[in-house]
């Protein structure tokens, strides 16, 4: 398929003779950016790639943590193969209940703070925003670099947390006080290790937050100030709109997380009492336990959208390109981003329906939660509208894009179920919630992330990834992901975070959990296909033309953002990025950078292809 398309592609590049003559052949110039392997570069593309590689490493770590959790849930207290004897030497190779708590805490922390948020904003944001808007670089190159290195410092803090005697923070990624502040078993002497681990965890969270804040400042400024000539706001691709809205959300939400984690850190390390009630033993002040939950979820709920909006944007672009159709309802797509972002700040209380928060105010959080389902629904319907009547090319990124939509529907609908407070009371803190969050964050965000890697791989490395391996990767991931997370909806009585639930009334759930673990192992194994494909394609992938997917996006113009410095020929944008299959044109796409006159009308064969 690819080979056929590259021949088709040739006509339009030749039309751009005046630009290409002045430079080296553009198939090469993408590899000519300054020192592509220099992690101290300030170049957005280099740092973007470093983000990508780092986050993929962290994804592997987070995945292994998940496997350890699943191991314990399927075969509690049995020796874990391979890693067991190394990690759990003290306990004879089995996971201890203390370490099980660490496992799910670190799994969520790594996946949220070190994989999804940085890969979507720091990775794809840095890689895609400048070429998509026709900017030569990001607005603040130094911030680009500092933000990336803060991520590794943050990871260092997480490692330090792991190296404490407690072997890592153990109060969940939500870190609810007083458990997080007291650490471990209350009133006994063994809590200090946990407190140190938790303090380092907080330092890590603080550093990732500052890093994200710098990325957000950089992206907002770049998108608002550095667009190419003719790139109006409503000619921005959905990806850039999503990145812009995400960054604004981060700017508003992150200060709260930073503030809250500093407060919790001082509670642990300096003996303040922001979150410790006067009634508690060891209390020094009359703090509020629920204050943390309000502050945390005021950040935490927008964070969920921060982890999905960029993926939604990228999938929108992928779907339009491979359906060869304009993105359906572009304007409502843009406005639904803004609606999701605004409503996202007033729904945090739906995490707290059973927390002891005022029961009347739960009603207003219910209404705002239901309202946020509407713009999310608009997005789903618009994606379906984009697919409907399209001339679908089911490449790997397209399959992942359709998979994203399909999985987001399931994850979104279980969200609607839980927006009804009496129903949520039953489902709260059970595996039904685990199923919901994984449909949204794995089924959607991670599939979207993989789709984006397959789609923009040629832009990053000048080569295409193997379609055969890519489709196999998609197929196995899709099957095993559903095998893992769909049955979790049937565990709506099994509480989360139980190291060994299978006593008494919960004993019946053991076989289903073993099935889930088998599927989770299959899902993890499937990612080896991706790893092999990624590494193989870096070196041996088919060399790509400058616009292998015949996409309209400005990033495919073949004009290297740095080389554009020299030839004094600024990019100009002439239309929106979704001019696919226009009835006025012979070819089924019309890139943003092509002038009307670039391609002479050939009326004799209006449908020729």
């Amino acid at each position, binding site marked *: 398929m690819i080979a056929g398309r590259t021949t088709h592609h040739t006509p339009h590049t030749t039309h751009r003779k005046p630009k290409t003559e002045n430079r080296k052949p553009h198939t090469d110039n993408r590899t000519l950016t300054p020192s592509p392997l220099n992690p101290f570069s300030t170049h957005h593309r280099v740092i973007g790639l470093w983000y990508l590689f780092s986050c993929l490493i962290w994804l592997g770590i987070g995945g292994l943590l998940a496997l350890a959790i699943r191991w314990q849930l399927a075969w509690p207290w049995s020796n874990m193969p391979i890693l067991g004897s190394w990690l759990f030497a003290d306990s004879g190779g089995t996971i*201890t209940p203390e370490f099980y*708590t660490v496992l799910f805490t670190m799994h969520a922390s790594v996946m949220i703070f070190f994989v999804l948020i940085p890969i979507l904003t720091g990775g794809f944001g840095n890689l895609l925003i400048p070429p998509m808007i026709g900017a030569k670089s990001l607005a603040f190159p130094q911030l680009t670099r500092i933000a990336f290195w803060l991520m590794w410092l943050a990871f260092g803090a997480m490692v330090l947390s792991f190296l404490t005697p407690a072997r890592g923070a153990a*109060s969940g990624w939500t870190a609810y006080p*007083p*458990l997080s502040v007291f650490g471990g*078993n209350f009133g006994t002497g063994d809590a200090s290790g946990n407190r140190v681990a938790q303090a380092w965890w907080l330092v890590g969270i603080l550093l990732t937050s500052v890093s994200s804040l710098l990325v957000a400042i950089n992206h907002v400024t770049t998108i608002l100030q550095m667009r190419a000539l003719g790139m109006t706001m409503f000619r921005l691709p959905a990806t850039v709109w999503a990145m812009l809205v995400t960054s604004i959300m981060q700017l508003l939400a992150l200060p709260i997380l930073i503030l809250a984690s500093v407060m919790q850190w001082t509670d642990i390390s300096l003996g303040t009492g922001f979150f410790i*009630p006067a009634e*508690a033993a060891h209390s020094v002040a009359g703090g*509020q*336990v*629920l204050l943390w939950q309000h502050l945390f979820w005021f950040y935490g709920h927008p964070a969920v959208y921060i982890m999905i909006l960029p993926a939604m944007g990228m999938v929108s672009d992928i779907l339009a390109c491979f*359906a*060869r*159709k*304009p993105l*359906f309802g*572009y304007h*409502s797509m843009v406005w639904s981003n803004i609606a999701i972002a605004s409503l996202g700040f007033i729904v945090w209380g739906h995490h707290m329906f*059973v927390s002891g928060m005022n*029961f009347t105010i739960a009603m207003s959080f219910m209404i705002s939660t239901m*309202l946020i*389902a*509407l713009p999310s*629904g608009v997005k*789903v*319907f618009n994606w*379906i*509208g984009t697919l*409907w*009547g*399209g*001339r*679908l090319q089911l490449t790997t990124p397209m399959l992942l894009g*359709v*998979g994203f939509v*399909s999985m987001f*529907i*399931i994850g979104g*609908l279980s969200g609607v*179920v839980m927006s*009804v*407070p*009496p*129903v949520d*009371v039953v489902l*709260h*803190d*059970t595996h039904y919630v685990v199923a919901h969050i994984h449909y949204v964050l794995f089924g959607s965000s991670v599939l979207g992330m993989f789709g984006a890697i397959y789609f923009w791989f040629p832009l990053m490395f000048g080569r295409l990834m193997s379609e055969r391996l890519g489709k196999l990767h998609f197929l196995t991931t*899709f099957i095993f992901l559903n095998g893992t997370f*769909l049955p979790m909806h*049937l565990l*709506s*009585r099994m509480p989360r*975070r139980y*190291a060994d*639930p299978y006593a*008494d*009334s919960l004993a019946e759930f053991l076989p289903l959990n073993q099935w889930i673990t088998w599927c989770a192992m299959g899902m993890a194994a499937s990612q080896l296909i991706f790893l092999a494909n990624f590494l193989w394609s870096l070196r041996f992938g088919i060399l790509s033309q400058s616009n292998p997917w015949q996409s309209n996006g400005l990033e495919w113009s073949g004009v290297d953002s740095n080389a554009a410095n020299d030839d004094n020929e600024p990019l100009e944008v002439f239309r929106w990025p979704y001019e*696919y299959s226009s*009835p006025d044109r012979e070819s089924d796409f019309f890139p943003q950078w092509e002038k009307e006159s670039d391609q002479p009308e050939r009326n004799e064969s209006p449908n020729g292809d």
Partner: protein
Amino acid sequence: MNRFWSILFAIVPLAAFVVLSMVCLKLVPLSTMGLPQPINAPGQSIDFLFRLVHGLCAGVLFFTSITIVWSLWQSRSAAGGTRRAAYIKSNLLLELAWTAIPGALLLWLAFYQMEVWSDTRLNQPTQIIGQETVAVPPLVLVKARQYGWEFHYAGADQQIKTADDVYIENLLVVPANRDVVLELESRDVIHSFFVPELRLKQDIVPGMSHRVWFNANPADQLEILCTELCGEGHYRMRARMRVVAPATFDSWLDAEARKNQPAEFQ
């Protein structure tokens, strides 16, 4: 290949649709989704809501998934053919419809569920003493701690937090068909009181005092589960619960009071 991928994308939503439809139409019990038979009236209303909202979602799931699958299926020959994709940018009427219809449904659902919410959470049961209607006083003070449950029953004075409280550990016995009010407090970190059969869950926040209530049918083998992470022993923090005939309850409490240990709270 398009046919293959269409079928792949159809399997999961259709399987979910079939299971959800059977649950919602009561063809299979809710225990299919892990929920045991409820033993109180609000439990049944919550189950109705549970079925209702899952039914609505199953409908949306079916409709959207079928459209996606059909889009893939119909374009199976397009890739090699000469047909072009439709050039449609938007459709205002369609977009208004798919915003307004779900909006109206959700708004209706929001108001519809409020009665259940206020019954279970806002309107503490009352009783008539003489001429006055007063709130039913708490029968038991539940003290949650790492990793167990303490139950301090109101003694002869019918009041909790007094010297004649009766202390039982990890076993909650309550009278059937009577309004029972529990007061929940924590000794250390946040815990959560969850009885699946009552469809009742309440976090217990240190420094706060929570009240929950129910009026349950007799049931023997119930379990109280902690559903808020409270430390490494979180999974062990479970207690037994029995709902017995009021007469049985009274004699049981008398017997326990006779071997009463002094209550150890505060």
